[in-house]
Structure formats: structure tokens, C-alpha cells
């Protein structure tokens, strides 16, 4: 792993009130790669993901200590503007969550709230570009004014990806993005993730170990809030160092 590092995490701890949800996590996430996080439910992988763009701030009694740096900037610095952080770190959720608006307005949302366009022409251009990037343009180009709810689940998820891409983040966090999708839609999203890593650093949480093996360059295994093992995916799935990692990926528990 001698690549350029985008996210550096040192001695990172997270707490929900009394509950110690992440214990002293140290991890370097390389740029323009896909990093998968696996582990049993409640192992802290989603907490970790949501700590990167501070979505956990919305939860009462959530506290962190340690360091989380993106491109050398401390994510938890007191002076940082959380909304501008979230503009740089996009997120795709487990269940497709489009707004009850048109397809067009769904993608436009991030541009509008962040005022990232000069005129309607630029707005339209950016929306088209990100829909193309998300592999959805051909399917929706004649229906941009239709409600996003008329799309299939897989299309909705790609719309959510387009919505995240349009504000040009550096990092994209994906929280089990295919958990609620059928196999064909899942395959499409996985293909898309592969294409996207050229331009973005991708961190993906998945319950599905085959998915991690298929898409990720690097894989990390979490358990009970600790990072157990972190390695190049191929090595992780063939020659894991720790016994417990091997037990998990061979399906002995979890």
C-alpha cells in the first residue's frame, strides 16, 4: 500500500454515551482506491464510516477522540465547517433515499444548497454529467421531470450516487449500498463503483464478503469496535494473518 494516502486515522475512539463503539482505530485509506469494511453487525464499521463525514454529530451523546485527517485537515477540528466537510465527503445510504422531488431536482439539490452553479445552463450541464457518470442518463434523459419515486430501486440508488457526485466530492462513503437491491442492480452498482474509483476515493461498508472480494482494493475487518485486520483484499481473503479473520471470512461465525 504505497499509494497516496487520502484519509489518515490515528488512535480514533468513538462513544455513544457510555458505549465505546470504536476502540483505538488506526488506518490509512489510500486515494483513488476502494476500501471495504466488513465485520459482524454492531462491529463499528458503520460508526466508522459515519465518523468520516461527521454524520454521527446528529446523534445525541456521540463523542470521539483521536485523529481523523482528510488531506491533512483534521475532520474534528473545532474551526472546521461541517457542511463544507460533507460537500467534500459524499455519502450513499443503505436504502435508496431520493427526495420526493423530480429526478432533475434530486440531482440539483446539492448544487442549489451549496450554490455551485452560475446559471441554468451550468446547472443542466452538471446534472447531465453526473447522471452520465452514475450510468443513469440513458435511462432517464427523457423523464427528468418525473418523480424520483417512479424509478426502480436500483435506479433510485444510482440517482442517489449521481446526487452525491454532482457536487464533486473527493471521498464517497457507501453504507451497504446494495443491501436492498436485486442481484442485477447490485452488479450494475458494483461496476459503477469500479469506474468511479478513477476520480474518487471510495469507502464501502458491506455485509456481503463476496462483494468486498469483488470490488475492493483493500479490505478492513472490524469486530467489537476494533480494527482486527487491514490488508490488500486478495491477501485478506486468501492468507489472513489472524485466526479470527479467517474464521469470519470462511463463515464460521457472523
Amino acid at each position: 500500500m504505497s499509494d497516496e494516502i487520502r484519509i489518515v486515522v490515528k488512535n480514533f475512539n468513538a462513544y455513544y454515551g457510555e458505549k465505546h463503539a470504536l476502540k483505538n482505530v488506526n488506518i490509512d485509506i489510500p486515494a483513488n482506491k476502494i476500501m471495504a469494511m466488513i465485520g459482524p453487525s454492531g462491529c463499528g464499521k458503520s460508526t466508522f464510516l459515519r465518523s468520516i463525514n461527521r454524520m454521527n454529530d446528529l446523534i445525541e451523546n456521540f463523542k470521539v477522540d483521536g485523529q481523523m485527517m482528510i488531506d491533512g485537515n483534521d475532520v474534528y477540528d473545532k474551526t472546521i465547517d461541517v457542511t463544507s466537510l460533507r460537500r467534500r465527503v459524499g455519502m450513499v445510504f443503505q436504502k435508496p433515499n431520493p427526495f420526493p422531488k423530480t429526478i432533475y431536482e434530486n440531482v440539483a439539490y446539492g448544487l442549489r444548497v451549496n450554490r455551485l452553479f452560475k446559471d441554468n445552463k451550468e446547472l443542466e450541464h452538471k446534472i447531465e454529467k453526473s447522471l452520465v457518470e452514475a450510468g443513469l442518463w440513458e435511462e432517464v434523459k427523457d423523464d427528468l421531470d418525473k418523480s424520483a419515486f417512479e424509478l426502480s430501486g436500483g435506479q433510485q440508488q444510482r440517482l442517489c450516487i449521481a446526487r452525491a457526485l454532482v457536487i464533486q466530492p473527493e471521498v464517497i462513503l457507501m453504507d451497504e449500498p446494495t443491501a436492498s437491491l436485486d442481484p442485477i442492480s447490485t452488479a450494475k452498482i458494483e461496476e459503477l463503483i469500479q469506474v468511479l474509483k478513477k476520480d474518487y476515493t471510495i469507502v464501502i461498508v458491506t455485509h456481503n464478503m463476496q462483494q468486498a472480494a469483488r470490488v475492493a482494493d483493500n479490505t478492513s475487518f472490524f469486530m467489537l469496535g476494533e480494527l482486527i485486520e487491514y490488508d490488500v483484499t486478495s491477501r485478506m481473503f486468501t492468507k489472513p494473518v489472524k485466526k479470527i479473520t479467517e474464521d469470519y471470512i470462511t463463515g464460521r461465525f457472523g
Partner: protein
Amino acid sequence: MATHKGMRKNFIEWILPLTASVSLVFLLGIACTLVAASLPVFKSVTLQGFLFGKEWIPTAETPSLGIWSLMIASLYVTLGAIIFALPLGLGSAVYIAELASPTVKEVLKPVMEILAGIPSVVFGFFGIVFVAPIVQRLFHLDTGLCGFTAAIILGIIVIPTVASISEDAVSAISKDLRNASYALGANRWETIIKAVLPAAKSGIFTSIILGISRALGETMTVLMVAGGAVKIPTGLFVPMRPITATIAGEMGETVVGSPHYHALFAMGLVLFIINIIFNLVADRFQKGKRNV
């Protein structure tokens, strides 16, 4: 045991549907009575003359039975009330649903319910002794008992309706949607204005329509504070007499079976129809919410 079970089955299958149908029976009964008691008025006046007639002199030798001025008065105080209540009601809804801490919420929601439960005669009293004098002094009026005062008091009465239905609508918006907005770099305010409120708009429309129909039907308050003048109001700051106040005020003094008597019923029918329309529209909006 068997008979006991059988009785229970009978109870569930017959008695409960019967109790549930009571409302329907009453509704139909009221509708029939209203129509039957209204129709004779059209022996003395045409439908057009009744609705759009500018004069309401029901006790003259040949009575003039035009309710136009009363309808305009109702329209004025109702619109005034909703204009007053909407920002306050919606504001409270957003505050309770989005911003208030659980403790504040626990205080505000019951307070809202208590406000909704105050008898309207108390509001009317409050209007006469407190609001009317202030309005009179503030706007240099001959009397503070006018459409404006009525609109404010009605507005206060309507706030809990708007607030509680809107609050339900806003609270029902899923966390996923808010998260989507926050994750795109929107702050709390932008999330409320651009994501949550648009998503809750059908519920908010419902609250407005139910608020309007509440204000339109409110009687005691307008009888007490609207001023009672029977002429087409030239603005909100003159005394006026809405439909409900007219019915309540005159029903006791009229001769049963006279054109005046039937005209009062016909006014009630007009209100009844308007209210049914509003409720159907509100129902539509609420259904719309489910299949967005």
C-alpha cells in the same frame, strides 16, 4: 362457554358496526333536515338572489334575504384568521418537530392541546375585554369590535389545528431524507426549508384546509367580537357579521316557518356544503401524501 363465545361474536359482528354507523346516521340526518328546512326559502327568493343579494333585511314587511354581505364577512374573518395562524402554527410545528429538546416538546404539546380545548366563548370574552380595546386604540377605530379583531381571535383558535397537523406531517418525514440532505452539505435550516417542508407539504395543506374550515364554522367568537353590522364590509377594520354569527344571533328571534327561518337554515346548508368540500379536499391531500 359456547354461548358465551357466540355472544361475544354477535357483539363484535353486530353491535360494533352499529355504533360505528351512528355518525353516518347523524350526518345523513342532519343533511336531510338541513335541506328540508332550507328549500322553502326559495319560495321567497331565487337561489341567485339568496347567494348574491346584497341586502339582508329579514324582518321587513317584504324581507330581503340576500346573504352576500354575510358571506363576504365570513370570507374576510376566515382568510384573516388563516393568514394570522399559518406562520405561527407552521412555525410552532417546525420548532416542535425539528428543534425543540424533548423536555420543551413535552411542555409545548400539552399546552397546545389546552389551547385547543379552551371554549370559544372564553376566547370571545378575551377578545372583547382585551384585544378589541387595543385594536381600537392602535388603528384609531370607532369600535374595536370588527373583522380584524375577529380574525386575530379566530387565528389563535386555529393555531393548534394548523400546528398539530403540520407537526405530525413534519415528524413523519423519515430520518433517511434528512440524512440525505445533511450528507449533501446542507445545514439544518436548508434541510428544513428545502427537504423536510416540501416533503411534508400535503400534510401542511391539509392542516391549512382543516384550519380554514374550523375558522369558518366558529360561531361564538365572531358573534361576540366581529361587530355584527349587516352590510358589505369595506375592509377588515369595520364591524361585520359572518354567517355563523347571523344564524346563532337570529335563530332565537325568528318565527318558525317564516322565510327568515328558512333562510337561516339555508345559510347553514351553505356552510355545510363548503365544509364538506374542504374536508374532501383535505382527505385528498392526505391520501396524496401516501403515494408521493
